[in-house]
């Protein structure tokens, strides 16, 4: 685990030094929110849970939880995801 943290630290420092965006270098998710009706997640690692009230998506080490009403997965691609509905909250677990 220590080795993993060390590698991550190096990577971050490197990207900061070269001013490379984090989502490219560090494999971070890119989340775009359109008002409260649509959310767009790039670079995800799969869906963990999907109901009309809650969507949980795996991103790298974290997990993004979206809560709302009448949620539906507009499209699912290997690294891209679009959720539509009435979004209430987004949180990292």
């Amino acid at each position, binding site marked *: 685990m220590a080795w993993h943290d060390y590698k991550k630290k190096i990577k971050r420092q490197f990207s900061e030094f070269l001013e490379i965006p984090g989502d490219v270098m560090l494999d971070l998710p890119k989340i775009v929110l359109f008002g409260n009706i649509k959310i767009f997640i790039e670079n995800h690692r*799969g*869906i*963990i*849970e*999907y*109901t*009309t009230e809650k969507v949980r998506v795996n991103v790298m080490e974290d997990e993004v939880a979206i809560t709302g009403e009448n949620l*539906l*997965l*507009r*499209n*699912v*691609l*290997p690294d891209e995801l679009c959720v539509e509905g009435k979004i209430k909250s987004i949180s990292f677990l």
Partner: protein
Amino acid sequence: MFLFKLMSYLQGYLLILVTGSAPEKFVNMSAGRGIYLWDITRVSDSAVVMKVHLRAVKPLRHIARRTSCRFRIKRRVGFPFYLAWLKQRKSLALGAVFFVGALYFLSSFVWFIEVRGNDRLGVNEVLQAAAEAGLSRGTPKWRVDPGRVEANIGEKLPLVSWTGVYIKGAKATIEVAERTVPGEEDRRPANIIAKKSGLIKEILVLNGHPVVKEGDTVSQGQVLVAGAIPPPEEPLPPGGVKKPGEKPKPVQPARLVHASAIARARVWYEGYGESAVIETGRRLSGRSETRVSMKFYGKEIILAGSQNIPYELYEANTLVKRVPEWRNLNIPVELITVKYYELVDYKEDHGRAGARGIAWERALADAGSKMPPGARIQEQWMEDVSTGPEENVVRVKAVIETVEDIGEEEIINP
């Protein structure tokens, strides 16, 4: 998005119902294997509905087995399914193809022929000439040679100076331009008489014997130029005096011609107009109201507009529409549209001068209405008509002087 929907429709897609403990896994695995899923909606705790392309369904079976899910096709959408449905209804498909084919086939004939530009020439003559050259109703379009038809019409009908034949769709248009042929000259002996009274201003005799001179006053019906030309008087022999007892020469009869002349004369037209100094009356106020009602067995039902007419004074314009009678069927329904125009009383004081102006306008219009359309106005003036004591009405007479050709042909009866 529209393009995507169109492509999906053309390729065909399925609405599948996935049931199982973890449909998320199913979605993840499909996405991982490059199967595109969209519009994923949860319908119950254990069921999810999603859309998938037709060609991606087969690999889904393995995925379903490995994620211990089951999927069932709910609905098939798209062109391939429509095609399959059509395959079962061969006669319908055949009918559609036949319809299109028949439409195409029938549109390759000339069904309508329109003749344009003919004035004196009959339509049938043109159509007959066209038919001789191979353009008639029901002829296939590829057999019609517009050039040949044009040439034939030009040849057969000497009255036509130019022809154009165009085919557009199932309609052929024959456009003709007619030649103006000089009419037969009238050679019957005739006089030129005055159409109306006037003062001859100028007279130009083309043929005939002038009877009146410039400056003469002529009355209606008077002969201006005679068709009978008297024989020239024979001059007396030089220095000779008419000997008494000499035989008079036989009188040659007058030569009769068809007289023609332009006889311009000054003609006067009079018109009378009057106008009240203080004018009272009723006129439209410009406001109007429409009431639409329906009459059914003598009962009138108002559909639109107010029940009672909002104007005190009005003028009504009624329009009744009813279903035309057919055989002994009589539908007792009438649609009645009444338009009410409001009238208002008015009282206007024009003043003496204003009333005179109005009367003058009216008198001029009255005089003008008696004038022939081509007459040129030379002069116009006004004369007051006095009726004794001062009264509310101004009376005016307008006189218009014009110069016009007053000549008219009159056949001489032999």
